[in-house]
């Protein structure tokens, strides 16, 4: 193997009480493409932000080309040769400026540039960079007029202009077409042949198969697997990333009740394969799949946030087609959204007010809210879900992540429903709270159908009677959670049979 270019030893990082990176050690050899895999919240983004100078590490050491590396700012990291292309394209380009300014923006920020813009020089330089990259763009065109793919390529081209020693690409192909992605891959190969170390973050198996020379799996802030050599063990890598420390929670599958949800020929996005799916009362089904496999699109189309392209959904035998969450709730379909900080928690409210938000009218007479009545519900729920707090009027912000999540769950368990959708209910939740939540979901499942959308396999195994695996916005496989063969699930998750010619769909 080549010499080590960047070496991380025992790197630690915490946000508040949340330890995001735990004694992480990793070395990145020159001339290699290291693919980093990890589920949401595994700590990938934090690792990238530490390397790119956005966050400072709490402990441990990083050396770059043998020298200590501790960038205080992104521009310092860039000057040291660590260049990052971030996942969110809009972080990478400034739409109101032209292509040339975007390509040279870091250079304008450098202290030695001078006060006035050197327009002609800039355009010439920008054209040089663009042609090196094979970008056929008018450098005077405003970026706002360009599509997503071009914007992404500009962000990457700008990174290249710095002669990076370590190039970090965070999901760079998520908005590229097949030919554009291929152009990027060729470029990556050229760079790694020149001795650049590439850290490539992706969930897309086809990309990983195409480009990886090493795979590193991350889980809970630690490296959970390192795969290198002539033949890479892709399934082993996914396994290490999702982790299935066999849970001791044994699921006894109850007899399903009468059918609640009936889906036939549902096509989530243009070009996806239509699928059928049924769900009965007293049944808990986990929906799993990699990021971008269509889990969220499925959940959102059931809750009226997205409109499926075609297909038929029926609830209790009645046609179901809703356009707003209100309409969905009126039909007895509740959804606890993922990413609670952005989508669920009302930070200004206490526990009680957060819990009673969706069904406030049940606590109100002539619109006047009865505090006593809602407090009673809140106290019942605090007890039922063993929420750790001092009282029902604690501000939601004083609770730990797991307890906040319990409050969000209580919000929807307070009323009877027909279909409960739980999108990532275990996100950012410690193991004990996770057990509590899983148990509560199963305990209350009797009179409704329950769909739990999770990206981690052991969460699915812990909570579900059945597991369906999604891939390319369709159902790839279905398993009964009984002596289930993990390898089969993993095969389905990684889509081990890549479609012929590796047809790429935008936003796959």
């Amino acid at each position, binding site marked *: 193997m080549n010499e080590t270019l960047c070496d991380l030893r025992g790197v630690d990082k915490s946000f508040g009480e949340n330890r995001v990176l735990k004694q992480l050690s990793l070395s990145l050899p020159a001339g290699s493409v290291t693919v980093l895999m990890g589920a949401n919240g595994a700590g990938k983004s934090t690792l990238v932000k530490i390397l790119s100078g956005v966050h400072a590490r709490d402990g441990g050491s990083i050396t770059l080309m043998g020298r200590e590396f501790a960038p205080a700012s992104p521009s310092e990291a860039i000057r040291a040769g660590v260049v990052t292309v971030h996942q969110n394209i809009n972080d990478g380009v400034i739409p109101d400026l032209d292509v040339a300014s975007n390509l040279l923006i870091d250079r304008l920020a450098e202290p030695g540039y001078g006060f006035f813009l050197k327009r002609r020089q800039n355009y010439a330089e920008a054209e040089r960079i663009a042609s090196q990259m094979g970008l056929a763009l008018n450098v005077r065109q405003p970026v706002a007029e360009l599509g997503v793919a071009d914007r992404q390529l500009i962000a990457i081209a700008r990174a290249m202009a710095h002669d990076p020693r370590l190039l970090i690409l965070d999901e760079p192909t998520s908005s590229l077409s097949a030919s554009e992605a291929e152009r990027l891959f060729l470029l990556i190969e050229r760079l790694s042949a020149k001795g650049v170390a590439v850290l490539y973050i992706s969930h897309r198996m086809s990309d990983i198969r195409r480009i990886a020379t090493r795979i590193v799996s991350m889980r809970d802030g630690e490296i959970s697997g390192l795969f290198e050599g002539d033949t890479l063990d892709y399934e082993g890598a996914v396994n290490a990333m999702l982790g299935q420390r066999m849970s001791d929670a044994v699921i006894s599958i109850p007899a399903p009740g009468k059918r609640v949800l009936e889906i036939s020929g549902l096509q989530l996005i243009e070009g996806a394969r239509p699928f059928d799916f049924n769900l009965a009362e007293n049944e808990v089904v986990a929906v799993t799949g990699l990021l971008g496999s269509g889990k969220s699109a499925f959940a959102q189309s059931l809750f009226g946030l997205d409109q499926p392209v075609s297909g038929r959904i029926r609830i209790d035998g009645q046609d179901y087609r809703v356009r707003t969450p*209100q309409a969905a709730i009126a039909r007895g379909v509740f959804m606890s959204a993922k990413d609670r900080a952005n989508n669920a928690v009302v930070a*200004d409210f206490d526990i009680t007010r957060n819990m009673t938000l969706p069904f406030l009218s049940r606590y109100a007479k002539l619109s006047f809210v009865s505090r006593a009545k809602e407090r009673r519900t809140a106290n019942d729920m605090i007890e039922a879900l063993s929420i750790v707090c001092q009282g029902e009027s604690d501000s939601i912000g004083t609770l730990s992540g797991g307890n906040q999540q319990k409050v969000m769950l209580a919000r929807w368990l307070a009323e009877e429903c027909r279909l409960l959708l739980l999108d990532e209910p275990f996100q950012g939740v410690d193991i004990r709270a996770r057990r509590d939540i899983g148990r509560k979901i199963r305990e209350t499942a009797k009179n409704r159908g329950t769909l739990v959308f999770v990206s981690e396999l052991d969460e699915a195994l812990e909570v579900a009677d059945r597991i369906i695996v999604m891939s390319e916005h369709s159902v790839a496989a279905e398993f009964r959670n009984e002596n289930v063969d993990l390898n089969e699930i993993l095969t389905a998750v990684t889509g081990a049979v890549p479609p012929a010619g590796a047809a790429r769909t935008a936003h796959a």
Partner: protein
Amino acid sequence: MSMNLDNTETSPAAAPAGAHSRRRASGPIDLAIRYGFLALLVGLVVFFSVFANGFAGPRSAVFIFQSVAITGILALGVTCTLVVGGFDLSIGSVATSSMMLAAYMMVVLEQSAFVAIIACLAMGALIGLINGLLIVKTKVPDLLATLGMMFLLVGLQRIPTEGRSIATGMTLPDGSTAEGSFSPLFLQLGRHRFDFMLDNLLPAPVVFLVVIGLLVWVFLELTRHGRLMYAIGSNERAASLTGTNVNRYKIVAYMISGVLASIGGMLLAARLGRGDIASGTNLLLDAVAAALIGFAVLGAAKPNAFGTSMGALFVGILLQGLTMMNAPYYTQDFIKGLVLVIALVFTFSLSARKSGGH
């Protein structure tokens, strides 16, 4: 409405925010945040009572209330838009438009007080509706939409009379003379004084302020609509995902703001007895200042009806006291600005430290 929940990978920093400040400690900073502003208010009253001759007494107190009545009513309207995370810059011009409309209805069109009042309220509601629709449907940012509305109304209210104030006997654009006059009943709205402990003590606008303040407080604090509006202001996406009709509540907030501003305008017209194009210029800034100062009251750190009323009162007391101590008039705006800045520091810096935010 289609929302994408997918592109927001949880930043680890977001989850545990504030997790390390377990429980409100009742330390000195906490006490300062909660009661600092009210203590300051009491201190101010004591200070002026001692040093300003004639400050302490029912007549002076009523004068203060009267001076803040119209501003306070407008500020309560702004508070409603602040609650849903919006802002209404058009209230000042809605109030002056309402004043001009009331005058025009009675003086030029010779309508009854009742018709004038209905017309003004309808105008306020309509402008609020348009503001709300601009913000909700056409996605114009709230500050810009209401700023545009403000300019539009400042111009519009002068068109019918070609820029002249409206009073009985004025010459109309077509050369005729306005024969109508303000109905005495209408004038009473701004001028009547109720007997309260002393004869002729309590002016009608003060009663309006107290009643409206109570209504807004009840609406925001005790009803489910108020609760949902606060939820929208704190996390719009979460509110929408729990089935709240976010757009409707936002529009309602702007309509409340418009209607309250039109009431303020009518009281102004009734007090002046004419449609005066030069008055009401300070209404917007004073009302906004009162609502923002209200954030600091009781450490609420959010818009609230009680705080807004206290904020309005605070400014009123300060100005009245300074006037009675012969401070020159031009220092008033300076003092108001200073109070506002201090209140905002109270709200944002100290309470952010309290919640352990980053």
